[in-house]
């Protein structure tokens, strides 16, 4: 596996499946009374967050701590881009502190790649969301959740129909999910007004639909993206009402869904805009579970990037034994 996780493109098919399999094993830890493994004892993991994201940060923090790593939270909010310390100086500081892995969230697309490529530091770099580029661990946890429900006991997501709905243009979650879901054999449809699809989307391995009604009945997964209200001011859509009418997941559309189909959302949600409360809280919604799975998937990523060898059958047994203890 690559030393860094900057983009889903850093992963082969086998890598991606291995992460999901490892996450499935590690998920057992979360159910044990003592939620801790000694794997990363003595290793230092830094949460370098240039943007506020409490949920992603605590998810990574919990993952690292369950693997016994030392976790340093470095909140660099407000010091991003032109203000304050440069990314380079921050990286050199972290290197001097001996960081084995840096989990970076940054408002600028490509900032994790800069951190990884510039040889400012030697540790692994994990992208926890960069600008409008990618958010690979979110895609991994989404794939993990889908596989668990719809393809239990199988390696990948072959043949599943996934609709990704909303502001694809500005969504790092969408970019990572398109790449990963396609890699794992799912058929992805992007559902958005043309204003919220990037020019160049024609080259993506996806289908496009301009309304949720067209796809909701035949989808195995409906993944809603957060729509930011300020996009209206930039002329991406005329009004919240019009957006919601065409692209929102409301009660009527929920009824059109197959009974086994899943409702997903990476959070935080705008209830009443892209998703209605009854959809978010429905039996088909796995939104809360996505959060729980996030910890397992991030444990797997840290484990595989820092711990080295994959969980062999034997290791896995040891793990299971420990869990029993």
């Amino acid at each position: 596996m690559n030393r860094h996780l900057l983009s889903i493109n850093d992963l082969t098919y086998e890598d991606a499946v291995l992460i999901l399999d490892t996450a499935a094993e590690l998920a057992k830890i979360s159910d044990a009374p003592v939620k801790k493994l000694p794997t990363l004892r003595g290793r230092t993991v830094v949460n370098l967050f240039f943007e506020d994201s409490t949920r992603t940060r605590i998810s990574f923090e919990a993952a690292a701590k369950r693997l016994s790593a030392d976790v340093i939270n470095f909140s660099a909010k407000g010091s991003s881009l032109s203000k304050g310390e440069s990314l380079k100086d921050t990286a050199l500081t972290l290197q001097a502190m001996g960081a084995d892995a840096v989990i970076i969230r940054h408002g600028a697309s490509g900032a994790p790649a800069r951190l990884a490529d510039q040889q400012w530091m030697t540790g692994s770099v994990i992208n926890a969301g960069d600008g409008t580029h990618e958010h690979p661990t979110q895609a991994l946890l989404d794939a993990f959740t889908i596989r668990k429900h719809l393809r239990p006991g199988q390696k990948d997501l072959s043949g599943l129909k996934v609709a990704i709905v909303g502001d694809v243009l500005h969504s790092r979650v969408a970019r990572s999910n398109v790449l990963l879901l396609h890699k794992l054999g799912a058929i992805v449809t992007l559902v958005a007004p043309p204003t919220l699809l990037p020019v160049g989307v024609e080259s993506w391995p996806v289908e496009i639909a301009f309304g949720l009604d067209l796809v909701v009945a035949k989808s195995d997964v409906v993944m809603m993206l957060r729509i930011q209200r300020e996009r209206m001011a930039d002329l991406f859509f005329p009004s919240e009402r019009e957006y919601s009418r065409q692209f929102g997941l409301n009660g009527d559309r929920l009824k059109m869904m197959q009974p086994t189909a899943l409702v997903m959302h990476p959070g935080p949600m705008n209830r009443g805009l892209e998703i209605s409360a009854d959809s978010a809280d429905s039996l088909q919604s796995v939104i809360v579970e996505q959060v729980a799975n996030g910890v397992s998937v991030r444990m797997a990523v840290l484990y595989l990037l820092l711990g080295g060898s994959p969980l062999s059958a034997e290791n896995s047994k040891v793990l299971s034994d420990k869990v029993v203890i």
Partner: protein
Amino acid sequence: MSKLTLIGGITAAGQKLNITISGNKISELTIDTPVAGNEILDITGSLIIPGLVDLHTHLREPGKEDAENVESGSRAAVKGGYTAISAMPNTDPVADTAGVVEQVFSLGKAAGLCDVFPIGAVTQGQRGGQLAEILAMAQSAAKVRMFSDDGHCVFDPLVMRRALEYVKMFDGVIAQHAQDPRLTIDAQMNEGEISAKLGLKGWPAVAEEAIIARDILLTDHVQSRLHICHVTTAGGVELIRWAKSRGINVTAEVTPHHLLLTDDLAESYDPIYKVNPPLRNVRDVEALREGLADGTIDIVATDHAPHPTESKECEWQAASFGMIGLETALSVVVKTMISSKLMNWNDLVDRMAIAPARIGGYAEQGKEFALGNFANITVVNPNKTWIVNKDASMSKSRNTPFHGLELPGVITDVFFNGARVLQDEKVIGKI
């Protein structure tokens, strides 16, 4: 008066020519061995071409002397075979008054390595509103003929119309940075497949082409003279070709980096490839090369844009736009246009010396070798190659996208008004 004769050189047309320089002028042109008694410089095997002329240079003085100043920019120019460069007005303060253009002009004189011709701002502070005192700059000691808000587009069509009309008083020219600002808010790179993948905000080709089209029509309407800075798109080339076929007085430039590099380089997120206008795709590069070869694009201009290291050693979005290019321009044009057989050396001399001097109105520059002309001569060994090393740059800045690249054509000597300012690849100080 001492006389120096360059012997063994070959002109761009392929003819043997010995040139004798007396003082600042060419005093003798022979094919045979020259008169004994002269000092001799044997350059057998090298090409002798008129000193190159750049119409688009950022020298950063006054205001950003940590990136470049007139003297260091002049050194880079000489290293790259230029004997004339044109200082863009986006300095601090902006070159929008006779005072500032005269200051830049006199700094160029003081450096004494090449001609430094200031370009004046079109509008006050390059803000796109009120016209700057264009006539005062034209009548100043700097005798400015070209005006540009480069870095910013003259976006308001009425302001552009008035500027085009106003410069007709002295056969001036407006050099437009064609970029619709509304279509390029926060734009980071060419809009297309790569920007979609990288999540970087797109700078669409239409934002350039829409302004080119509008300004061509305005120029036709008021019968003035327009120069399009750094054309980057296939559509832009088409529009200019159409304008020329209609007899509209428009000229255009392309930069060396747009002739060679494409937007996929942004995949590294290394802002060394961040430039405005942005690197485009292969189809655009091919159209630019064709346009330069057939004369639709009149000239090569460097858009030499020095930035300090910290402006590029950062996130892509935080980085400054621009690349240095004076020292690599000739070699990149040789690589893209001559090695590919799209042009010959005569064409190169036209696009890099003769045509730019004509457009800029630089009477003593960009001339064929003739008795009595000022001796502005560049000696190039076309058969040697060199490897670009950013740390060896004469510029104060290091932001070349060509670091480590092997390029054809080594410039060994440059004569500026008869003075040997580059000697065996080394820049010699003041005259």
